[in-house]
């Protein structure tokens, strides 16, 4: 309940008090909320990952061995829903919750209490979706896309779908509020000298992500409301037998659904940019181009939704095809920015950097296969096969998930004041990276052979059982890698080596405060003259003026 006064000078450092359970319930401190977000989303990640393992086990060989048909349908729906709505996107928002004020030298987010509300709504939404498992009719089982009319009352009467709708509504309200909070904070609460063109790239990407959320989530809320009205209140929005349209649902859903994939990737682009720049000891190459590319992605992403509907025969395929192709250009620019950042740098490879490089290698396959599925004739073959499943896993799992792990290794020392074990980290990286590719490369192939997605089993056609078995084996290796990182987190939380304020030689402002940061984030701020104020402070010879002076001297 305190008006915050900027610190007059370096104050003596006080160790933070340990928080009890009740403190976590009522906290509105962005760092605590960020930790809650990240811990909760990691919890959902473990659940969704365990579900993925069960699915892979079921698919290891043809036949029904592990789960029955309807159980499998619930499993892939929960896995997809959780990974998208409860893991990859909200982890990024939680990370930004923690980092954004630190990055811009602010004491907190603009609306701390609204911020707390977004977290509790997210948690409530997630639990609501999963609570369907307790019903005798089971949780929603119509895929994370919840296509009408399959999801209407006639075809899916159980309340699992209703719970799913309400959960997603809560999550979308939460995301919209978070976006407003982020935008307001960046506009109004930057530290003196932190002009817009000195914002770290991560912050720019959060700005663009927030903008996308504001454009995309209201239509999602509309789709969910219409679905609910159809199911419970006698509406016919999507019911063709009463003048409604099944295609309408797809339009409204994908108007949200495609931009959502950029909500799930742009923050992670920011993470990778920051990590690569730090461990190359180079400034971000092509800063302005990178920012403009993010805006270009945001704009174009609003005009490509129906590339998910190429095979309906009811949309203008060439329009959506060219728009989708064009997105490849700003995405490609990011790659050249990263390469330009590493170019002539002095690279070191701690675990965070390895995961960032793993991101680049994996996401590239997601990108080039993305160009393939953006071509309608090719999509006629691969849409809704395992090729498509594998394409988006290369962007979201091979991409975002790897960047998520990079972020954990990079910022864990700041958040806890302790280092993660690098040895465990390296081992975890190699298991995850190799396991990931063994899991998914066979799925590209089996997809090209025509194996559909969302099937509980498959025919023993030539090659199919072998490829699926390889994939399942890979998933085991991958799971081991992830488990090692989780173990690392748990053990290092209390027993890791002390990290110090700046273990990596970081550039952004959070490395100029203590680990963990004090209650209002900063005891004193360094002068801000670039997007790397902490680096400038430590290495004045690295700043533009400094370098000239060094050469002259």
């Amino acid at each position, binding site marked *: 309940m305190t008006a915050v006064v900027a610190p007059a000078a370096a104050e003596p450092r006080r160790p933070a008090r340990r928080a009890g359970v009740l403190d976590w319930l009522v906290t509105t401190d962005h760092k605590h909320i960020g930790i809650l977000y990240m811990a909760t989303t990691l919890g959902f990640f473990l659940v969704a990952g365990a579900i993925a393992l069960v699915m892979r086990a079921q698919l290891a060989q043809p036949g029904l061995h592990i789960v029955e048909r309807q159980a499998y349908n619930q499993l892939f729906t929960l896995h997809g829903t959780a990974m998208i709505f409860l893991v990859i996107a909200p982890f990024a928002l939680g990370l930004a919750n923690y980092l954004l004020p630190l990055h811009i030298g602010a004491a907190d987010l603009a609306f701390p209490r609204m911020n707390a509300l977004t977290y509790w709504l997210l948690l409530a939404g997630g639990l609501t979706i999963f609570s369907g498992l307790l019903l005798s009719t089971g949780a929603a089982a119509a895929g994370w896309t919840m296509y009408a009319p399959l999801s209407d009352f006639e075809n899916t009467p159980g309340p699992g779908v209703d719970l799913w709708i309400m959960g997603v509504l809560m999550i979308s309200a939460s995301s919209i509020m978070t976006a407003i909070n982020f935008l307001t904070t960046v506009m109004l609460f930057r530290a003196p000298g932190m002009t817009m063109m000195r914002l770290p790239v991560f912050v720019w990407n959060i700005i663009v992500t927030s903008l996308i959320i504001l454009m995309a989530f209201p239509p999602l809320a509309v789709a969910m409301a219409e679905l609910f009205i159809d199911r419970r209140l006698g509406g016919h929005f999507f019911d063709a037998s009463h003048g409604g349209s099944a295609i309408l649902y797809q339009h409204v859903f994908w108007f949200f659904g495609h931009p959502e994939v950029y909500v799930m990737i742009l923050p992670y682009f920011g993470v990778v940019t920051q990590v690569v720049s730090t461990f190359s000891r180079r400034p971000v190459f092509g800063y302005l181009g990178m920012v403009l590319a993010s805006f270009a992605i945001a704009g174009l992403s609003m005009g490509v939704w129906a590339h998910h509907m190429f095979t309906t025969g009811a949309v203008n395929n060439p329009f959506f095809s060219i728009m989708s192709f*064009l997105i490849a250009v700003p995405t490609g620019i990011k790659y050249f920015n990263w390469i330009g950042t590493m170019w002539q740098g*002095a690279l070191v490879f701690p675990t965070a950097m390895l995961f960032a490089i793993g991101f680049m290698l994996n996401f590239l*396959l997601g990108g080039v296969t993305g160009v393939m599925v953006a071509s309608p004739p090719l999509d006629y073959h691969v*849409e809704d096969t395992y090729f498509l499943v594998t394409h988006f896993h290369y962007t979201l799992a091979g991409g975002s998930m790897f960047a998520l792990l990079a972020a954990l290794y990079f910022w864990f020392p700041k958040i806890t004041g302790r280092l993660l*074990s690098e040895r465990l980290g390296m081992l975890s990286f190699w298991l995850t990276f190799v396991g990931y590719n063994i899991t998914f490369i066979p799925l590209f192939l089996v997809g090209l052979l025509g194996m*559909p*997605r969302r099937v509980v089993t498959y025919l023993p056609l030539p090659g199919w059982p072998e490829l699926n078995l390889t994939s399942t084996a890979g998933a085991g290796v991958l799971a081991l890698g992830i488990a090692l990182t989780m173990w690392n987190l748990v053990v290092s939380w209390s027993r890791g080596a002390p990290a110090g304020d700046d273990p990596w030689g970081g550039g952004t402002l959070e490395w100029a405060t203590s680990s963990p940061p004090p209650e209002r984030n900063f005891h004193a701020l360094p002068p801000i003259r670039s997007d790397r104020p902490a680096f400038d402070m430590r290495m004045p010879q690295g700043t533009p003026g400094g370098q000239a002076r060094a050469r002259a001297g």
Partner: protein
Amino acid sequence: MRMDPGWVRRAGVVCRRYASAPLLAVAGLGLSGCASPLPGAATVQGQRIAHLWAVFFLSAAGVAGAVYGLILWCIVRYRRRSDGLPPQYRDNIPVEIMYTAVPVGIVAFLFALTYGTEIHVDRVAPRPDVTINVTAFKWSWLFDYPGTGITVAGTPDYPPIAMVPVGRTVRIVLTSTDVVHAFYIPSFLYKRDATPGLVQRFDLEIRRPGEYLGECVEFCGFDHTRMRFWLRAVPPAQFDRWIEQGPRVVHQRVRYTAP
């Protein structure tokens, strides 16, 4: 750190020593991974798609190869060797313009090819040789041959086997009675959604006789997995004889025993 057991430490050392070798290996695997095991395209339309696929695959391999090369070059060449500060430049405008313009060119090229192919694949003949009305329902298919009185009906346990002639233009008129399904024949590299309330038309010209597996690929509920069918493509004369056997409802009698 003491908490690591010894094997973890040793593995960590090995990992670091051979850091870039597996990286290269996996990148190579990733590339060869997509090497196109497309099922042989059994229709004229599918052949065009296969050609387009080949161009896309080579372009993708080229782009990915170049970018992987640059990344690996950085990893190998720009390892930190001393404590000196590397150059701190931030921009190189000509390079930035180039890496924006070249992708635009590539993308324009690919779109032009896409457009040309799509026009051919989507073209419907003014007067097809054979028309088949296909209706998807939960969870099987109904093939109706208008004007002949012949209907082929299936169930999840007994998927339908529909006759089609080789070398003639077959018009499929597709719809659904309940939820969204999709009509997909991997060997034709082609699918189309069956949406309730919409009627879709497309043409297939089959090049060789054979039995082609068809699948529903839009998730449609409980028995989606078993919503399969077969197209039996036969020479035109044999097809005509089959039609001439007169009006009837053909049910599949052989239970397909696979899962």
